C-alpha cells in the first residue's frame, strides 16, 4: 500500500493540491507603507509628556521615572520657578536606548509621562532620536487628541 502510494506520488500530489488551492485564496498581506495595522489600545510607542487643560505641563520633575528606568533613558534639568515649585528646563528621552517597557509610565505619580501609539520613528541622524522637552510636549498634544478621538 505504501509502495503504491509512493509510486503514484500521492503525498506529493496532495501537497501540490494544497499550494494550488492556496494560490486562489485572497492574500493576507498588509501592504505596509501604504496600509497600516492600527496599533492596539495599550500599544507602547514613543513617549509623550501630558499637558494640563491650561497648556502647562503636568510633570513636576520628581525624577521617579528616571529612577525607575532600567536603561537610563530619561534625564531632566530643572530650576526653581517663581512660585517656588520645580520647573523643567529640559526633559530628554533617549530613544536609542529605550526598550519600551513602560516602567516610567507606571512610576509617574502625576500621570505626566505616557506612551503614544507612534511606532514609526526611524531617523537618519542619531541626535534626532533624543527627544527634548518641546518634542515631548508636542507629542503630548498629539496623544491627548488621539485619546479624545478614541473615546
Amino acid at each position, binding site marked *: 500500500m505504501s509502495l503504491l502510494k509512493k509510486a503514484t506520488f500521492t503525498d506529493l500530489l496532495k501537497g*501540490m493540491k494544497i*499550494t494550488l488551492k492556496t494560490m486562489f485564496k485572497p*492574500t493576507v498581506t498588509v501592504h505596509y507603507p501604504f496600509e497600516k495595522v492600527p496599533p492596539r489600545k495599550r500599544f507602547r510607542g514613543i513617549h509623550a509628556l501630558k499637558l494640563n487643560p491650561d497648556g502647562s505641563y503636568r510633570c513636576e520633575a520628581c525624577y521617579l521615572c528616571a529612577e525607575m528606568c532600567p536603561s537610563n533613558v530619561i534625564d531632566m534639568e530643572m530650576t526653581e520657578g517663581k512660585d517656588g515649585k520645580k520647573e523643567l528646563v529640559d526633559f530628554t528621552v533617549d530613544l536609542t536606548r529605550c526598550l519600551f517597557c513602560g516602567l516610567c509610565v507606571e512610576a509617574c505619580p502625576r500621570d505626566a509621562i505616557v506612551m503614544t501609539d507612534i511606532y514609526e520613528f526611524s531617523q537618519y541622524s542619531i541626535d534626532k532620536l533624543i527627544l527634548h522637552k518641546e518634542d515631548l510636549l508636542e507629542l503630548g498634544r498629539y496623544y491627548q487628541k488621539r485619546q479624545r478621538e478614541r473615546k
Partner: protein
Amino acid sequence: MIEHFLSLLFIVGLMLVAVPPITYLERKVLGHMQQRSGPMVVGPHGVLQPIADAIKLIFKEDVIPRGADKLLFVFAPSFSVFAALLAASVVPIGFINAVPMKSGLLFVMAMSAISIYAFFLAGYSSNDKYSFLAGMRAAAQVLGYELPMGFALMAVVILFGSFDFNEIVKWQQTHGWGIFYQPIAFVIFLIMMVAEVCRPPFDLPEGESELVGGFHTEYSGMRFAAFFFGEYINIIVLSLVVSLLFFGGWSGPLADKHPVLGVLYHLLKAGFFIFLTFWLRATFPRYRFDQMLNIMWKIFLPLSILNIFIAAVEALFVG
C-alpha cells in the same frame, strides 16, 4: 538562409526577453501560493519590478574576491548563458526552426548538461568554501540526474525512432502524444529536468539556507544576473523540449492550417511546465543530499532502464 537567421534572432530574442517576465511571474506565483501578494510596489501590481531589478543589478559594484581564479570567475556566468542559448537555438518552436539538426535532442541534452559546468567553475574559482561545496554538490548532482535522464530519453528515442524534433512531432501527429506511450519516461524526465536546472526541491547547489548562496555567493551585479539568465533560459528550453517529446509540441487543432497557432500551442504547453517548476518550488522542501542520490540511483535509474524494454516492445507494435 535568411529564414534561419531570422528564426535564430527570434529564438534568442524570445529567450532573453522572456526571462524578466518569468522572474516576475515566479515571484507572483510563489507569493500567492503562500498567501502573500508578491511584488506590488513598482508599477501596477509590481509589473515593472524586473526592470527595477535590472537597474539595480547593473549599477551594483562588481566584486572579484581576492584569491579568486580571475579568468574562470569571469568566464563562469557567461558560460551559463552561452550554453543555455546554444541549447535554445536548436529547439524548434512551431515552424520557427533556427538550426534544423538531425540530432537536435542529443544536442540540447549535451548543452544543458554542460551548463552545469558553469556552477562548478563558479564554485571552484571563487575561493570561498560555500561556493566550493556548492560546486561539488553540482558535480555530484550531475552524476545523479544525468543517467536516469539519458535512459528515459533513450526510451523515447527508441519509440520515435529519431533524434530530430521535427520527426518526433510528426510521429506524434500520426500516433498520438508521447505521454500516452511513455508515462514513466515523462515522469522521470520531468523530475530530472527539475534537477538539471537546479530548482527546488533539487536546488542543492544553491541551497540558500545551507550554503549562503551556493555557487553564486561571491558574485554580484551583472555576473550574478547572468547565472539566473542561464538558469531561466534552461528552464524555458527544457519546458519546450518536454512539450515537444510528450505533448506533441506544436500539434493541435487547426495547427496545420495556421502555423502561428502551432507556435502558440507550443509556447502554452511549455508555459505550463514553467509554471510547474514554480509550483514545485512553492510546495516542496529541499531534498537532503543523500536522499537525492538515493532517489536518483536506487529508484529512477533502474526504472528508466526497465522503461527502455517497455519502449522497445511498444516500438515493435506501434512503430
